[in-house]
């Protein structure tokens, strides 16, 4: 009897493939996707998209309360800090001094000592000031922050940030909000290969294929905001990203075939008819 695999077994939605836990600092995560909370049209869509993405950690920004508005609600009215690990950022800062000020304010809110350190060096490209980021990282690590540092896809900066004591290093795929995907997969792989701390690619992912290709480089996770928030249907894109991150991770673990520039037939060349 031949087992009728085709009719009796359905492909499983998820597969148990041996994987190392996604650990940052002393914390394990089941999702390798971290998402931002900016740019959403409304809070209900944001919450729906985050749920669909499966992310456990979400970034937030520190800003002045708008005292002229009667509705002075911050994001924590919509996002339960018991259910998501908050990752405050220092977005908008252009110097180590500013970033350290924002970091301290973020920690004083009393929810977390984790921090996404981001110091911008150029207004047009929003590329990071890696020198200032390394300086700020040293200070903040010394103050007990768990620093996840946003940086360029540059190995030397990444190594210095690891030396500074960052719990994760987060090179960009491409400029913030550009949606260009990974412009330099070779540099991303080199950073992943050389550092011990988790590598999370932060910024530049535009759609699910970008997220998948990023994960196929072997990095530990991806952080994104715009790609989900400004999609026509952010909830559907959140779900697509969840699948893409998973698919990319599985493909990396499965080990891809070597690529080559010549065709090789898949069917036997022997046994052809005369």
């Amino acid at each position: 009897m031949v087992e009728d695999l085709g009719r009796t077994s359905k492909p499983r939605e998820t597969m148990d493939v041996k994987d190392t836990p996604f650990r940052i600092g002393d914390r394990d995560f089941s999702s390798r996707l971290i998402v931002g909370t900016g740019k959403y049209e409304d809070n209900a869509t944001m919450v729906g998209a985050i749920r669909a993405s499966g992310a456990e950690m979400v970034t937030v920004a520190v800003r002045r309360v708008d005292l002229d508005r009667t509705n002075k609600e911050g994001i924590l009215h919509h996002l339960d800090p018991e259910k998501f690990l908050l990752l405050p950022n220092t977005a908008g800062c252009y110097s180590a001094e500013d970033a350290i000020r924002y970091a301290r304010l973020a920690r004083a809110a009393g929810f977390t000592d984790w921090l996404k350190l981001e110091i911008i060096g150029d207004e047009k490209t929003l590329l990071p000031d890696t020198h200032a980021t390394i300086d700020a990282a040293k200070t903040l690590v010394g103050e007990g922050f768990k620093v996840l540092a946003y940086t360029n896809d540059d190995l030397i900066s990444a190594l210095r940030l690891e030396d500074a004591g960052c719990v994760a290093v987060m090179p960009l795929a491409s400029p913030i909000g550009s949606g260009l995907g990974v412009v330099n997969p070779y540099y991303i792989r080199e950073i992943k290969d050389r550092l011990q701390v988790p590598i999370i690619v932060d910024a530049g992912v535009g759609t699910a294929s970008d997220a998948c290709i990023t994960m196929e480089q072997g990095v530990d996770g991806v952080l994104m905001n715009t790609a989900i928030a400004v999609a026509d249907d952010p909830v559907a894109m959140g779900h697509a990203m969840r699948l893409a991150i998973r698919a990319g991770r599985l493909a990396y673990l499965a080990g891809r075939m070597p690529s080559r520039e010549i065709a090789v037939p898949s069917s036997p060349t022997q046994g052809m008819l005369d």
Partner: protein
Amino acid sequence: MTDPEAIPVTLNGKDRLVPAGITVKGLLEALELNPALVVVERNREILDRGRYSAVGVEAGDVFELVHFVGGG
């Protein structure tokens, strides 16, 4: 403006008059802000939440009142 009981302070970059003798706790109440969700920086120093009722607002104080908003 002519009220002798009011003192000038800066709140989130804007000049405002607040009642003399008000505490930081009183200031947050007057602004209808939840002290558990707002961080207060006074003259570039972060104020510990436990001190809000003990710290009085003084003329010329510069306050930054911040919270978490959506961001990436």
